[in-house]
């Protein structure tokens, strides 16, 4: 729990980098500070671990004023990762990660175990990477080591200043996904600074938008996209904010589980009967035992064909279906790409679990139903 109370940073020339900022960061949440350059987001973050002195106001960490804690002690209990990573080139990966544990004078055995544990957490094989030097690593691996180093002494709070800023977009995406998983496992209170709104929406439990040192809006990503507070925020989150919001919604609660289906070994007559009974013009075809989606068949084709297999459009599920863990945005994208008004949804094995209608997604965008936080977590975990 970090409590920022009416904090200002005034430079000697009178410039107010941060101006009367107040916000509170709940324990275990990842709060993203975002805003244009010079908005004071990094300054605010650096005031939390006193790398920059506060001019007025106070910052409470777990109820204690951070000015009362000796600066070094304070910083050793707050993980710190920056965009430039700042890995020490003369130290091995394990020495880098062990920086804070060494400062805290842990014993060597504990440090070694902790280093291996962290390397595994960030997805690097300890035996391969422990004794490498930073210059032997790729940019993505360096970022991972940077994160591992920030987690070094298991601090309850972490400050991250664009920690994935220095890598290519594909690697960044992978690192973000991994970090979300790590955060689910470690549940730190994290202050995350970025200027990338997509990253903020993806990563943040809450997003604080700053402008000229002042807080403009502090809300969950959904609220921010749904009810932007004024023109600045609206512009900042972008014209496609509804689309972005769909990206936060999992498709599970939009799922229509009553799917009309026929089995592959059915006859053409049986299929026609199913269609008539349900009043539809086409049905999905699945395997009998496994329920794996194999294609679809429509009424017109059945009229002229001899058997169901002749009439069906055969297609692997990976081509026509979306996964059940996809977001509404991905489902919409798939429908637009394939020209479907209804898309099948399959689980990991390819079993047909339901369908999504285009109207359902449109309704979601228009009526803004409240999305439970559970769904959000699962939606972003999607691979």
């Amino acid at each position: 729990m970090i409590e920022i109370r009416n904090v200002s940073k005034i430079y000697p020339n009178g410039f107010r980098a941060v101006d009367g900022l107040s916000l509170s960061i709940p324990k275990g949440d990842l709060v993203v500070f975002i805003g244009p350059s010079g908005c004071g987001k990094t300054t605010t973050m650096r005031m939390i671990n006193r790398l920059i002195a506060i001019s007025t106001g106070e910052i409470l960490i777990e109820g204690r004023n951070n000015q009362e804690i000796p600066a070094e002690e304070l910083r050793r209990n707050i993980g710190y990762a920056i965009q430039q990573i700042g890995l020490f080139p003369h130290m091995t990966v394990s020495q880098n990660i062990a920086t804070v544990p060494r400062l805290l004078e842990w014993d060597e055995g504990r440090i070694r175990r902790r280093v291996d544990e962290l390397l595994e957490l960030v997805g690097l094989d300890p035996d391969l990477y422990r004794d490498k030097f930073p210059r032997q690593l790729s940019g993505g691996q360096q970022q991972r080591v940077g994160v591992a180093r920030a987690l070094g002494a298991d601090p309850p709070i972490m400050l991250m200043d664009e920690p994935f800023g220095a890598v290519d977009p594909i690697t960044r995406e992978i690192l973000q996904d991994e970090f979300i998983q790590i955060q689910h496992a470690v549940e730190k209170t994290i202050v995350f600074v970025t200027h990338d709104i997509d990253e903020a929406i993806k990563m943040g439990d809450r997003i604080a938008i700053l402008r000229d040192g002042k807080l403009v809006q502090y809300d969950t990503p959904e609220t921010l996209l749904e009810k932007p507070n004024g023109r600045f925020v609206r512009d900042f989150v972008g014209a496609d904010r509804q689309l972005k919001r769909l990206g936060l919604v999992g498709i599970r609660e939009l799922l229509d589980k009553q799917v009309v289906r026929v089995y592959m070994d059915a006859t053409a007559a049986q299929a026609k009967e199913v269609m008539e009974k349900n009043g539809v013009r086409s049905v999905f075809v699945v395997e009998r035992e496994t329920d794996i989606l194999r294609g679809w068949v429509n009424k017109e084709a059945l009229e002229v064909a001899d058997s169901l297999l002749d009439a069906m459009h055969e297609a692997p599920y990976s081509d026509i279906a979306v996964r059940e863990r996809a977001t509404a945005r991905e489902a919409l994208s798939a429908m637009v790409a394939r020209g479907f008004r209804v898309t099948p949804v399959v689980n990991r094995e390819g079993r047909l679990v339901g369908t999504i209608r285009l109207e359902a997604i449109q309704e979601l965008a228009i009526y803004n139903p409240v999305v439970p936080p559970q769904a959000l977590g699962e939606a972003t975990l999607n691979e």
Partner: protein
Amino acid sequence: MNSNHQFRVPVAVWGWLIAAILLFLGTFIRLEPNDVLLVLRRANPFELPHKSNPMLQIGENSRERLVLTYDICRGEADSDAPLTEQRYFDAANCDKVVRSGDTIWVRIVLENSAPISLTDFAVTDSIQGEIPIDDTCWHVDIPLRARPNPDAGWGGGQAGALPSQGDKAVCIYPHQVAGEIEDPLLYNMDVSFAIGEGEDAVAASIAASNFIHVFEDFPLSPEIWLPTFGTDNTTVIKINSTHIGLPVFLLALLFGGFELALAYFYRDTVNKLLQALVRAIGVFLIFWSFFGHEIFWDYLLGVLFPSALTRTGDIELLRPQNSVIGYAADHLELVIVSSLVIIPVGLLLGIFVTREENRDYLPFVNNLVNSGQTVPTIAVVAIMAPIIGIGFKPAVIALIIYGMLPVVRNTVAGLEGVDPFMKDSATGMGMTPTQVLFAIELPIASRVIMAGIRTSMVINVGTAALGAYVASGGLGDPIAAGLLRQVDPWIVLGAVPAALLAIILDYVLGRVEFVVTPRGLQIEQ
């Protein structure tokens, strides 16, 4: 830890081996053939019957003269009339005769410039003057190149007879005189001659044959704490061709062995630090022993100034007062003593001005350091004379002033060059400013800082040569004296070792730089 690496002999070992072979072959380099070195040596006085006689004393203050008379015979020893020469050697103050304990080294340049062999040469009369020789046993070591006919007896090659009791003539015996017919040439050994009588001659020759093992004046210059494997003039000024102090080739073999052992015992680790250090020390010692290898310098002078060598009377001029290694040791002492001050002070100054709170001084120090380099070196040295006087101290102070600049400049550059994000993340993780300095800044800057120290020391090898103008000693001395008196060999004996010293120092410090640079920084991205 069991190795899964195949052990391979490092290339450097072959390098050392080749060096050893070359150096060994180099020991067969000889002086000009008409330059004969006589070693008059009192055989072990404690084992001879005439113990009553005090050791030979030619005091530094005495004006006693050593008179040596010898014959030079041409052609058949008994047919031609011997040409007898009588030469006087001022024992106290002449670099042709140098006394060291019981040994007197006499260098004779034969005026007849045609090559002779020792068949032609014999000491016919004794050492005269006030030196009592009648009951002292002497022997004469004659280098390999100039050896007598083993069949020859004494007195200009006449075969035969032993001297009788009381005979004052100098007897020259092949050293296995006691009936054993062995060809000294075959054994590649020095031939010893004894001046004495009867049994003493045998004893003397045995003692002389032991001479090759005697390193009683193993030189260790106490002022500088560096072993000088060569010789310097306070101990022995001339050595026989086969006696090169501690033979350099053995040294080369030793370091080859070291490298092999290190490579073997550390084959499992990637640690190359020890090898680098061993090689640096080895290369330094090899070259250092060359400084003491007077034969080498004689040979060099002989090649460069062939006429000077043979001209009568020029021999004194060929060599300056001190030996090469003596000058080199003085020189190195100047450089090392000044660096002992430069390195800590320069580092502290560089660290001081790069601290956040002292930033105000940085431009001032930067300007001072940069403009300091434009001051001519000779000006820095010369200005010391009117201020402090002459000698070692003013030279060292001048070296400190001049050598400080690269150290400070590189320390500042190295520390300023540390990525600010590195310092930011170190501080952000809770390091104190001192911890940031020692754990992050200095290691990252170490390569640049060490390069500054290396530059400083190598520059100071050059600057120290100018120290001769304030009479500091060192390799500048023979250069300055040679220029003044127009003696080219002196200039060569100062300039060549000075250049060599700068190159060796640069190499050694380069290895040190490699050792102090953290491994992680040696990997190129």
